């Protein structure tokens, strides 16, 4: 076998030299890019300034300038420059810039056709800019909104997230519902935490959105139902009755029950106390999570009965139930006499749990005092 080893080695060296040259070129390109970005910023700034000036004394803008801007913003570098200019000017004259952005909606709508052909990263950036500018605020239909809907399915998580952010910022509850329906119908994974936090940034009427989500609640899969409940928990206490029925229903999914218990922790509803006590008293090792969260939530329902239930829960075989029960007893400031049987009893674990929460509470208070002094 004739094998010219050195040829292979030289080949590799050549490839490496190419990589080094690539690196050097990239440094130069980045320097050029930084300089050119500044150049673009100056160009865009001049155009935006003249439009803002126009708007400051009339309700019209120069159409020709707007067309020139529209053409330039098809390129991502100019869009970056535009974003930078607007961000700066918005700090100086927020009301005027907001007016300008709302009036520029047709220009942004025209950009959709260009960005629809771009790669994911640039589309995600376009969505980010639309979210930041809130150009379709309280608008129900627009090519931008259609494009955001397209980005939600079959794109990267970043595209989806930025498109959702834009829809939350636009403030139209129907469109948000439609976007979430797309996620649900296409079985797209979007972390429940991201959806909950996103919904909380909704710029429209939060109560209206909560009502809409509840109205269509049963049309969605569990993955979306949980963030819906989390969102409603944060914005409204008007759902106690229907949620109570759902919680009391034995067929309700475990994860939903947990979300509902959290709701009733934040928005107490007297009939729920009995349901929570039931979860603790009929603790099932398969559903220990429900008992554990019930042990926490029941603190929102102070009373002798609650203390008795929690005292019993302290003896649970499950570590988390004991832990949360002790924490609740501490937060309820339970009377020592009622807990004497635990302190003097045989269950060392129950006693230790109570002592731990007692000490932890003191340490927290101490740390707060020290922080205030500093």
């Amino acid at each position: 076998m004739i094998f010219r080893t050195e040829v292979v080695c030289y080949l590799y060296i050549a490839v490496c030299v190419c990589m080094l040259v690539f690196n050097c070129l990239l440094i130069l390109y980045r320097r050029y890019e930084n300089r050119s970005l500044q150049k673009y910023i100056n160009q865009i700034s001049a155009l935006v300034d003249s439009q803002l000036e126009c708007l400051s004394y009339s309700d019209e803008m120069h159409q020709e300038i707007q067309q020139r801007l529209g053409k330039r913003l098809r390129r991502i570098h100019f869009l970056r420059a535009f974003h930078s200019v607007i961000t700066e000017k918005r700090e100086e004259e927020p009301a005027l810039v907001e007016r300008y952005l709302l009036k520029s909606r047709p220009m942004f709508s025209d950009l959709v056709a260009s960005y629809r052909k771009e790669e994911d990263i640039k589309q995600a950036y376009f969505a980010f800019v639309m979210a930041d500018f809130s150009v379709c605020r309280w608008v129900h239909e627009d090519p931008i909104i259609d494009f955001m809907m397209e980005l939600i399915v079959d794109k990267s998580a970043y595209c989806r997230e930025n498109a959702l952010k834009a829809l939350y910022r636009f403030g139209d509850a129907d469109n948000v519902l439609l976007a979430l329906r797309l996620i649900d119908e296409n079985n797209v994974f979007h972390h429940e935490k991201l959806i909950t936090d996103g919904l909380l940034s909704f710029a429209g009427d939060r109560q209206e959105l909560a009502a809409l989500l509840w109205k269509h609640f049963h049309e969605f899969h569990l993955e979306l139902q949980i963030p819906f409940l989390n969102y409603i928990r944060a914005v409204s206490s008007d759902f106690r009755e229907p949620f109570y029925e759902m919680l009391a229903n034995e067929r309700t999914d475990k994860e939903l029950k947990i979300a509902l218990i959290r709701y009733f922790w934040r928005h107490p509803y007297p009939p729920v106390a009995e349901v929570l006590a039931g979860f603790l008293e009929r603790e099932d090792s398969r559903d220990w999570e429900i008992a554990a969260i019930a042990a926490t939530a029941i603190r929102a329902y102070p009373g002798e009965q609650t203390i008795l239930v929690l005292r019993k829960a302290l003896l649970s075989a499950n570590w988390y139930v004991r832990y949360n029960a002790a924490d609740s007893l501490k937060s309820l400031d339970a009377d020592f006499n009622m807990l004497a049987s635990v302190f003097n009893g045989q269950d060392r674990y129950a006693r230790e749990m109570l002592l731990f929460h007692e000490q932890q509470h003191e340490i927290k208070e101490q740390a707060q005092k020290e922080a205030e002094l500093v």
Partner: protein
Amino acid sequence: MTEIVKVFLDYVNVFFILYLLVYSTFLFLSVTVGTSVLYKQFQMRQLHNELKHDYYLPISIIVPAYNEEITVVDTVISLLQSQYKLFEIIVVDDGSQDNTSQVLIDYFHMHPIDHPVHKQIPCQPEEFFYQTYRGNIPITLVRKKNGGKADSLNMGINVSKYPYFICMDADSMLQDDALENIIRPVMEDENVIACGGLVKISNGVTIKNGKVVNYKLPSNPLVCMQILEYDRSFLASRIFLDQFNANLIISGAFGLFKKELVIAAGGYDHSTMGEDMELVVKLHLFCRAHNIPYSIRYASEAICWSQAPTSLRDLMKQRKRWHLGLFQSLWKHRKLFANTKFGVVSVLSYTYFLLYELFSPFIELFGLATILLAFAFNLINVPFMILFFLIYAGFGALLSLTAFFARIHTQNLTLCLSDVVKVVGLCLFENAGLRLILAFVRMTAFIGYKRGKHQWGRIKRQKMSIEL
């Protein structure tokens, strides 16, 4: 006799050509892929492709410490400077002989507490607990009987209260956005069960409020060479293997894990020195055995700064320990060897670590012995041998430089001209000199090796450059 040697050397030649060809190809591919991934991530950052939220998943940060009185306070301070809002810090003092616990208690005004422990994985018994709060962040100190790093991590897992935990070294500092970046893969993909961060050498770096304010290469050439080596190997064995969900290592200096799965898999193994690698290999096996869809990811934007050994002696000790850990992990999970049932984890990763990490010093020794044999029988072309060696060293050096500069550019770090010159000069020596020394160290790692010995890697600690 000469004929026999000739035939033998012919076979050896073919073996080494193939061996080096595969290695060079792997290295080349990994640096190329790694570099392009870094540049893509850089572009994504510029264009706001991000998952930024106010509230993320809660995380427990476990800091195992043994004789870390010099660095442990700085480490906790660096954690408190994080932008992340929901986490707890658990420092596990593994029976230190210095004042590790005391310096923490004094600095953070910690209070004793009778902390119940939910022992889900075995570990040595606790001696005492201290706790305090900084804002909403609880800082818990556990002092336990000495049992090694794996044992301390298991204790930390038992004490932790959140569903994800991070393990990190007590001589490391996290950048302020490191927690946010390391949890991001979990938000992107529900199947992510573990995620490694990028570990970089902190010698010469000044960090203020969790941000790098001054990046300068250290004056110690040994540390500079390790920086080059880290960059190359992180690009090679982390980013590249990440493309196939085939990473076998998440550095013990900075990694995130799903607690529930780690507990189900049995936690960290006390009996190995490379507990970080062993856990990751075990998680691969566990998830595949139980048909759990999983992904083990690598987040190159989650940056942890860690101290590197400054003396050759410390470096040798560290590498010896790493090599033994590698051996123990690969041996313990030897059923991965050439087992196509485990897919790319077996075919690509396990084979790579076996041939090019574990066996490489022995193969290199074998190569040297055949050179001597060829000399003895006058069967060697000396000029070609030298040329070959130089080309090989040059190839490695160029890849190191590519990896190094790719990292510098994509993390917005700036280097002065003298540092650039230093790097270019040292990359050749790193490939032609240090690599050989470390190959010798790894080869002799098994001398004096005792099974089941709980050891902490000790290097001389320095105060970190952290500004408050």
